């Protein structure tokens, strides 16, 4: 029985789509564009959502996932903003790396955020952990690690990884950053003792850092927190006992983070965490199409089977659609010229990286 399903599904995957018409959208085929290669976070999310989304539409349209890798996802997102059809037959998976590039002012980006309407947002907050060798003894123990030289291994300077260096630098530490690591390479280096500071998203943290914490080889220091639809940075719902960076900053310096540094931190956080994983339509789509998608995603989000199947990859975060998703989208703001200048100076001095623009 099951094999039959698989074979049938395989046939569909190989290109023979079954003809059907939807009453919801009047479409029998939806193209999902993933601007990255197979196997990345965005790809996994879209492939996880696709079967449930298809069922949530009345006549179960075929959702065709198409990977368009290259250029950090920017060329595919540019093309989508220019050419996506407005009838709901095209949606795009957006990811933090594209947002960060936009926030940092990558000249290759030819779209504005107004050109997209989010219909699904899955936030994903990071947790920061340090080695006991830094002198830290418990969560939030910034005092204990005072004066420690931190070494961090990250992927690219213009990715969400920069938040780790920025946060600990603002907390008053010298952070030496080594770049060019593979996904997960920072954590292995941490286990080998090459790095003493690292961050992982909730899903990866539960999977591979929790055992280290249990063995006493790592100490969870703080969380990035998540941005609520109101625009405020709040504690990570998965870790209500772990303080956020914003809280620790105030504890260390006696006053809240403010000025251009706060603006830069907030802009990067909203780009990297809040809308880290989003599914968007072109803003030319009619309100009816957006509503149809929102209703379909409501069904997906409410589907206990979907939640159960994706508990580990999506973490226990609230998933957003409709109004809430659009409100969160609004928190992704452009930095003021002062904040951008501050960040550019910071990058040049601390990371030796020249910010575009």
């Amino acid at each position, binding site marked *: 029985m099951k094999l039959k399903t698989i074979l049938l599904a395989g046939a569909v995957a190989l290109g023979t789509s079954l003809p059907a018409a939807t009453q919801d959208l009047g479409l029998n085929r939806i193209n999902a564009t993933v601007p990255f290669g*197979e196997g990345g976070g965005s790809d996994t999310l879209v492939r996880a959502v696709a079967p449930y989304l298809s069922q949530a539409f009345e006549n179960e349209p075929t959702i065709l996932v198409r990977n368009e890798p290259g250029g950090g996802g920017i060329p595919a997102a540019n093309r989508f903003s220019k050419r996506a059809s407005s009838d709901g037959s095209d949606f795009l998976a957006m990811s933090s790396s594209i947002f960060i590039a936009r926030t940092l002012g990558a000249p290759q980006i030819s779209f504005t955020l107004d050109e997209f309407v989010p219909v699904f947002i899955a936030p994903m907050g990071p947790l920061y952990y340090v080695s006991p060798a830094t002198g830290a003894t418990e969560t939030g123990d910034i005092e204990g690690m005072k004066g420690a030289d931190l070494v961090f291994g990250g992927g690219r300077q213009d990715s969400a990884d920069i938040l780790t260096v920025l946060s600990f630098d603002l907390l008053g530490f010298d952070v030496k950053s080594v770049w060019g690591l593979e996904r997960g390479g920072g954590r292995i280096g941490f*286990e080998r003792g090459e790095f003493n500071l690292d961050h992982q998203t909730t899903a990866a943290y539960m999977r591979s850092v929790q055992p280290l914490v249990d063995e006493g080889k790592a100490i969870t220091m703080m969380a990035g927190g998540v941005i609520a639809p109101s625009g405020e940075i709040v504690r990570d719902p998965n870790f209500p006992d772990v303080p956020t960076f914003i809280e620790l900053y105030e504890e260390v310096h006696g006053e809240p983070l403010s000025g251009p540094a706060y603006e830069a931190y907030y802009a990067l956080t909203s780009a990297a965490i809040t809308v880290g994983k989003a599914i968007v339509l072109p803003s030319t789509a009619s309100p009816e199409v957006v509503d149809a998608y929102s209703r379909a995603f409501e069904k997906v989000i409410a589907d206990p089977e979907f939640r159960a199947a994706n508990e580990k990859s999506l973490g226990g975060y609230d998933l957003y659609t409709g109004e809430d998703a659009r409100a969160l989208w609004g928190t992704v703001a452009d930095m003021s010229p002062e904040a951008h200048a501050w960040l550019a100076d910071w990058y040049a001095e601390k990371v030796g990286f020249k910010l575009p623009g």
Partner: protein
Amino acid sequence: MIEAFQTLTGTSAVLYLMFGALLALVVGILPALGGAAGLSLLIPFIYGMDPSAAMAMVIGMLATVNTGDTITSVLLGVPGSASSQATVLDGFPMAKKGQAARALSAGFLSSVIGGLFGALVLTMTLQSAKQVILWFGIPEILMMILFGVASVAALSGKSLPKGVAICAFGMVVASVGFAPASGEQRLDLGLFYLGDGLPLIACVIGVFVIPEIVDLIQQNRSISDRPSLGNGTRQGVIDVLRNKWIVLRSATVGCLVGAMPGVGGAVVDWIVYGQTVRSAKDKSQFGKGDVRGVIGVESSNNAVMGGALVPTLLFGVPGSGSTALLLSALILIGIQPGPGMLTQDIDLTYLMIWSLALANILGAGACFLFSRHLAKLTLIPFAWIAPFLIVAISFATLQINRDPRDLFLILLFGAIGVAMRRFGFSRPAFLIGFVLQQNLEKSLYQTAQLYSLTDFLSRPIVLILLAVILLILGTSIKQQMTKTVDNPEEIDRIRQTRATQLVLPALLAVFFAAALWMVKDLQPLGRMFPMVAGGFGLTACAVILLQLGRGAPSALEDSHVTGPRYSVSFWHTAAWLIAAVLSIACFGFSPERRSSWRPS
């Protein structure tokens, strides 16, 4: 462990395994579609599946792709997937000599042995593997990559400077794009298209496949001129048994390299090929159809999976695109990769190992059954196959970025490849440089940042690897030096085309000089690597030019003088090929179909 076997064979899991394996054969045979592409087809269907059935299917897929890709590599000279690039080097010349069946059976048998060996190593090392991986820090990975680079010395052919120059060329070409250390864009000529660097598959197709197609069209006959395929199958089996040490050694290297995150995949076959050539007494037939080349590469690329599963399962760190997908698949069915794979999920781990072993046997078995029919492909006159092949390589190229500009790239590298082949510049050396550049640069710079020289030199594994590398370099260079000069009459004849022979090294010298000039304003960390590689390249080019100027025999090489005469002229062939690829680029993307790479 036995229970896991019963779960696998006693339930429907075995059917899923077979389905995965069969699909993998098809994916493997299609050029450039590898494990990652195949797996991404399967992943949507594993939701809600029983974990053992899902894993049996996924492993069945991953384990078999590298068996299926042998067929395309040997019969058509196009790499079936990224990990069988080096199979083309000797497999395809064997097919041309009418030994396709022999090459295939040797390839399949070494594949299955390599795969089983990988499964065995995985089983044995699983308990202690975590510790071993922790021993291999960034400096050790750097040394393993240098080990790969050292094989260039053996692959250089007649002239060591030519090997060095072309390897440096590979490295400089591969360093186009994002500089990992400083985060700058370099050598991209200001084009966003070059921002990601040049796609590997397009360069491989250009350098390896285009020259072969040109050559075969010029010959104007079938790939194999033998009327029958002979009883090569048995010979292939005997070859493998005779070279059991190559099989064992290559499989070991495959496992080791596979276990290193970020290195595996497309690199292993080149490292192993270099090693096979280096260790052989008689090197004269490599690249012209030496069965040992096929045996070495094929035993390693199936063993890779056994090694690659160690960091994937124990650390949740994938070493390649396909293991990254495996990781997603595991998470999707609710399994957390990590140390727990050895405790609460140990049954599933063993089931995966059994699946790995069984899929290898099934895949090779199916290939043995079908290969006799497929091998008849080589009897078709090449003029009939060429159009299909041109479509296939265009498809394979577009498969990566869906960017028609990549088609121009294969023509450019095709031209360079034709020149490299004609004037004795080692094409494998080019690819080793190209493939290893990124990992080499990253690990060099990371090591330099994290370790002092004393720290570096007091690590035992580093010292052992250093000794091995020096030994290899020493013997290779000694062999180069003591090589006897072939017959003087031929040298005199080659000397007559000296002016033409000067063109490629002169162009390379200009290229290196331009690259050095272009990176001079970058930050030190961004320009260091291309400057060193470019400096080596420029020096090597100067030596070659000097030797050619003096007419030194070791630098003289021109296969147009020494090779066979063809009935169809080169320019005629090249014009047809260029026209075919260009017409695909111009007309292959009709406004309607453009939606296949750009959302409409």
